[in-house]
């Protein structure tokens, strides 16, 4: 009887393995991405698969993994076999070169527009009627305002949030760094919850109803409005924010091993096509193709955008603000 039991288990294991392997014949790509791109790639992947099928006759299935951008970069470094990464910021992608040489040093020059097929910025989401009358960054650092933002240590969006606030503080304080540091300190003193990724923050704000203001990706804020209704939330666009450029890259070392370099490259290039750019615009990212960008421009509020170059690029910004004992550690932590 005992023997029968083990035979049944063994057979069941084999059956499940067989089911899992039954559609292994087609090409598989793994796209390791950050949090708010869930809906974008859900719409883009089948469109690309259809395009690739028409072009080559091959079937391609794209698997997705989503989490905070910094965490995803770590996972790829620790062995998550991504054929492509589509992360929130250049620094996280660059780690794949710096730490394990999984991508070439010049990865950011391999695709147009610094390898960013779409851009976005940082805005505020507040509850309907804007009860605290929040208009700009200086309104959210006031005492008693409860802020929801992800953790800059793990989330790319959170680092864009932080730098946008920093840029505003510098501008309004005649480039006084000490004043900017104080401003950022006040902002994080108001932070109620630091989730690991942008989507976690959005659900904290929307479904758990914590906080007065969510600092969010523009695309994430508009998507939340579409999903949960404009009768519950309002988007507040500050006077100044940052031009966020989320880059994409083929993880050549892994793609070569999988034999997927060609399809992975085309997967990313097709994001720049008219069809790809339309999907990008529809999902509230800012298209980089001028024609499609003009078509979707009216869905966003105008604002002044600061580029990451103003911080001396991502390496300098990361080192100064987010490394261990950087500015963020100095202003946020136990007892601060």
């Amino acid at each position: 009887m005992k023997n029968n039991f083990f035979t049944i288990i063994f057979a069941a294991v084999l059956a499940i393995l067989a089911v899992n392997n039954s559609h292994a014949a087609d090409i598989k790509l793994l796209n390791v991405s950050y949090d708010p791109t869930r809906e974008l790639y859900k719409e883009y992947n089948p469109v690309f698969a259809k395009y690739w099928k028409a072009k080559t006759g091959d079937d391609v299935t794209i698997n997705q993994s989503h989490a905070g951008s910094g965490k995803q970069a770590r996972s790829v470094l620790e062995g998550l076999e991504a054929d492509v990464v589509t992360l929130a910021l250049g620094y996280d992608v660059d780690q794949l070169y710096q730490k394990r040489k999984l991508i070439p040093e010049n990865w950011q020059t391999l695709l147009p527009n610094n390898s960013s097929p779409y851009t976005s910025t940082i805005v505020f989401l507040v509850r309907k009627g804007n009860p605290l009358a929040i208009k700009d960054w200086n309104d959210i650092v006031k005492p008693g305002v409860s802020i929801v933002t992800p953790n800059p240590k793990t989330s790319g969006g959170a680092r864009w949030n932080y730098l946008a606030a920093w840029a505003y503080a510098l501008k309004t304080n005649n480039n006084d760094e000490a004043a900017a540091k104080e401003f950022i300190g006040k902002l994080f003193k108001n932070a109620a919850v630091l989730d690991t990724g942008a989507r976690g923050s959005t659900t904290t704000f929307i479904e758990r109803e914590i906080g007065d203001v969510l600092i969010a990706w523009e695309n994430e804020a508009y998507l939340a409005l579409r999903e949960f209704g404009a009768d519950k939330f309002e988007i507040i666009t500050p006077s100044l924010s940052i031009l966020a450029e989320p880059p994409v890259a083929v993880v050549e070392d892994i793609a070569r091993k999988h034999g997927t370099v060609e399809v992975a490259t085309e997967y990313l290039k097709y994001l720049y096509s008219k069809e790809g750019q339309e999907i990008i615009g529809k999902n509230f990212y800012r298209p980089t193709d001028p024609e499609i960008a003009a078509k979707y421009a009216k869905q966003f509020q105008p604002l002044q955008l600061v580029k990451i170059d103003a911080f001396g690029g991502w390496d300098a910004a990361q080192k100064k603000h987010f490394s261990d004992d950087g500015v963020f550690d100095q202003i946020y932590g136990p007892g601060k």
Partner: protein
Amino acid sequence: MNAVTQPINPAKLVARQQLALQDPDWVRWTLIAIAIGFISLFICLPLGLVIFQAFSKGVAAYWSALSQDDTIAAINLTLLTALVTVPLNTVFGVTAAWAITRFDFKGKSLLTTLIDLPFSVSPVISGFIFVLLFGAEGWFGEWLIVHDIKIIFAVPGIILATLFITFPFVARQLIPLMQEMGNQEEEAALSLGASGWQTFWAVTIPNIKWALLYGVLLCNARAMGEFGAVSVVSGHIRGLTNTLPLHVEVNYNDYDVVGAFASASILAGLAIVTLILKTALEWKQGNR
């Protein structure tokens, strides 16, 4: 009245003894009400809410959420994980309990402590242990890459993490029982000429079978429900490395409330089946 003590009415004596053993009605009923209230509030209400949310958009929406490819893949992976880890941990658990209760050896108390380790360590830490060991930058990372073996962010990693987390359940159920039983019955069997193997099947197993089954049930429940450790080693690839608990989180973060609660209802269903089986086992054990 004279000096002779009046005989006490035996019925009254019984009543007085009962009174001494029993609290007044209001105490009893308050305690029962608190217990029932607590259980309804913290167990029945959330469970009911899961079912309510899962069906909030109708049976059709519930069914279509469960029949999505990713959900089916998550169910398959969860079942596979349990099918591999539960039998292995049953064997390990019996072996460990046998070794600890039947033999005397150096480091026995250390072994007993080590068995409890997965209970005392946070599941997230348990997951990180495997990343540190088998991750690309971990101790065996280079070797694994050279030999093209995937452990972390693949099914083997998930099974390993679950194996680690669920290790103590069977052993923990058996050790106290086998200690209490002592080994006289087994010694008797051996002295009557039974082989070690015969003794195990004919004497030990019948004595421990209910505790063993109970341990297996608990082990299975945890194997299917583990989140923390599996989350660390999973990589969260949809349709490939998401177990049911991880799939619930993915759905919830996709704003797919029905999908999240539909998957959660399956986990809740598994928990309820486990509880019913557990109660049945206890009842059977009590009536033996």
